[in-house]
């Protein structure tokens, strides 16, 4: 594309027979007068009520294999599979994210337990899904289940199924509110309002550390306060170690946003950060508390706690270097658990970013692995039943932990299944329970709007690394970008 784009701009032959091109151009111009996006936006419809349990349905349920019967007993009594998926063969049309095994394993197990449900699974990279999802949902073949990147625009355009009725039927509204908050969209933005998506599980972020290197700088237990963490970083630097390994290249997005947000939650309340991420009206990221957080990050940059080429380090390079022993700490999420277990067995540790003062509450970025149902999906009921099954079925929850490596969420009285002993997953699961208990889950400041990461945080954090931007300037710029994108 690079060198042969010229064909597009070739001079047209002299117009001896100019009429036909002129007519075509006129027709095209006429088309141009119409406003784009005339796709009628369907009003957000309430989900159709699932069919009432019939005698036939319950008869079919009794014929289900033993495993299904056992699991049905575990999930809520009112939700039988036949009631939502019927007894006839059903094919769920699903779009999953390439490279993540969890939904594939869950769908296999679901079919094992409920043989009348089969899957037509398409997959794509997450970055491509961001571009495709609106078109997929609006298209002729709307998916029953789809990995969702962001929701606000999709909800505004009436492309996603409202899940409120299902939430009442399945009792999702009895779960800890922090689990569903990020999947709610209302008039005040994300965070409250109607439910439009469900998390298959809930990722957790924090600080991973190299146990050998940590011992070398005398770290016997995870830091309990920010000051203790500061001291450890200084020790690592003095010992000639790379204190933090992180990525900050544009291709992966600015990974310095991880420590920045952790610091924000230390200097101010996590809820204020969430309000901004959830686009509550009148909120700003440019607050005194966040300024202190940004200044703290700048101190770390200037102290040389990040690699000197951090602006050129991509996500995979950062992990590769950390696994090879470059870096005492790295800010990342539990989606890397399995990888760290494999690459540095017994040498990997995890702690939540410490609060500002000892005994303070913990806060951390945690995202539901969000899936939604298209507004026009033919098998919405069955997909909703799948969501409930994932959160409540013991086998599904075990898969959530051992394959997905993340907290399965669901009803608070259900035990969290253990991961393999010695796995870092157990540490991140414990941490997740702590954060959910403290109601400290946060969205990610990079996801506040569609392009705030690529157009706001990443270039500004890079400039701060390069000494070309001040903490105050960064917050001001990102806020301006945020408002520009929200159109206010």
């Amino acid at each position, binding site marked *: *594309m*690079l*060198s042969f*784009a*010229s064909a*597009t*701009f*070739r*001079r047209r032959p002299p117009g001896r*027979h100019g009429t*036909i091109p002129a007519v*075509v*151009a006129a027709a*095209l*111009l006429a*088309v*141009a*007068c*119409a*406003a*784009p*996006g005339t*796709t009628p*936006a369907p009003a957000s419809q309430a989900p159709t009520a699932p069919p009432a349990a019939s005698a036939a349905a319950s008869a079919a349920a009794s014929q289900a294999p033993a495993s299904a019967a056992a699991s049905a007993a575990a999930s809520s009594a009112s939700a039988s599979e036949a009631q939502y998926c019927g007894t006839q063969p059903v094919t769920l049309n699903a779009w999953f994210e390439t490279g993540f095994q969890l939904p594939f394993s869950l769908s296999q197990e679901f079919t094992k337990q409920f043989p009348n449900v089969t899957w037509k699974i398409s997959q794509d990279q997450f970055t491509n899904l*961001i*571009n495709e999802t*609106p*078109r997929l949902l609006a298209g002729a073949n709307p998916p029953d289940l789809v990995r969702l990147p962001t929701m606000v*625009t*999709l909800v*505004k*355009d009436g*492309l996603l199924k409202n899940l409120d009725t299902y939430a009442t039927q399945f009792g999702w509204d009895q779960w800890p509110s922090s689990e569903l908050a990020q999947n709610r969209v209302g008039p005040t933005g994300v965070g409250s309002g109607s439910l439009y998506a469900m998390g298959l599980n809930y990722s957790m972020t924090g600080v991973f550390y190299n146990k050998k290197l940590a011992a070398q700088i005398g770290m016997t237990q995870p830091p309990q306060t920010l000051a203790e963490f500061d001291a450890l970083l200084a020790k690592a630097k003095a010992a000639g170690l790379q204190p933090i390994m992180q990525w900050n*290249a*544009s*291709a*992966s997005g600015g990974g310095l946003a991880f420590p920045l947000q952790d610091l924000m939650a230390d200097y101010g309340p996590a809820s204020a950060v969430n309000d901004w991420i959830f686009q509550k009206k009148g909120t700003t990221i440019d607050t005194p508390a966040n300024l202190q957080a940004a200044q703290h990050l700048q101190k770390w940059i200037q102290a040389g706690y990040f*690699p*000197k*080429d*951090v*602006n*050129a*380090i*991509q996500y995979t390079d950062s992990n590769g270097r950390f696994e090879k022993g470059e870096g005492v700490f790295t800010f990342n999420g539990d989606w890397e658990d399995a990888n760290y277990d494999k690459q540095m067995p017994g040498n990997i540790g995890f702690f939540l970013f410490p609060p500002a003062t000892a005994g303070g509450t913990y806060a951390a970025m945690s995202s539901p692995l969000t899936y939604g149902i298209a507004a026009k999906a033919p098998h919405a009921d069955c997909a909703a039943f799948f969501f409930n099954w994932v959160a409540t079925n013991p086998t599904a929850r075990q898969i959530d932990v051992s394959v997905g490596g993340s907290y399965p969420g669901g009803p608070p009285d259900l035990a969290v299944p253990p991961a393999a002993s010695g796995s870092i997953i157990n540490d991140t699961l414990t941490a997740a329970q702590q954060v959910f208990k403290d109601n400290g889950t946060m969205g990610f400041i990079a996801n506040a*709007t*569609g*392009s705030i990461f*690529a*157009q706001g945080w*990443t*270039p*500004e954090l*890079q*400039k701060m690394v*390069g000494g*070309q*931007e001040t903490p105050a300037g960064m917050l001001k710029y990102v806020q301006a970008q945020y408002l520009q*994108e929200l*159109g206010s």
Partner: protein
Amino acid sequence: MPAASAAGARAQDRPATALRRSRLRALRRANWAGWLMVAPALLVYVIFVLQPLVITVQYSLYRWDGIGASQWVGLQNYVTVLTDQNFIQILTNAFQLILFFCVISVGLGLVVASLIRRVVTGRVGTAARTVLFLPQVIPLVAAGIAWSWVLALSGVVNQILGAIGLGGITQAWLGDFGTALPAVGLIGVWVLLGLCTVLLLTGMGKIDPALYESARIDGAGPVQEFWSITVPSLRNEIAVCITVTAIAALASFDIVYISTGGGPGLATMVPGLEIYQLAFVGQQVGLASALAVVLVLLVLIVVLPIQRMTGGEPL
């Protein structure tokens, strides 16, 4: 002539008129045949080039997320593109890339082509030509990834610098504000040099050897020959090279997308990448379209004078 004699004249002219008519008919038939021949290509051109172009202009006048309802904003998107500091920097970056993609590629291409023609002939010349042209064959995504390794802090470039005692200046070439854009520019030179060289070599093959002979008899040296005969004779080829490379610089996307993603900051952000991000990541289709229209106009503004100046035929 008065009307009275017109009838008679018409009667006399009948054979001539018939002849003219049949000639016209033949002409018309030929025209239809011509249009028929062109039709498939024209149809594709209209559907895939003209229509998107018109639609892009249309989108650029709205604020639109790509799916939902749109809002008419007139020329507001163009005002943003032409006044916002960031957009200006992005457009400036594109023009800086012209320096590398265009000036260095074509200049170096001329020198290399002359060398291959005069000095390194035979097998070595063919090998050199192949090596230089290879980047055109390698997918740019693969090339971008390879170059990001070469230019990394622990990459080959820094290893060589360290080995020759220049360890002090090693850095992450694609991650530093001062060196990122030139580094991307050099990747562009690597890609385009082969294309320019081969094009220019072909042109040199067409130059009459008698010209060089007479120049030599007149006592011209190699440098004088180069400036007085080679360069003027290659006017058309040079125009093609400049056009292709200038467009490559202004419309660059893949190399930048893969090697730097536009960073650090906005140091290597180019219009093509920004359009992509605005439209597909930020869902600001209107703004992206306005930038795309501005980019098309810039390309035309840059390329048309090149065509005029060199007096070259259109590509």
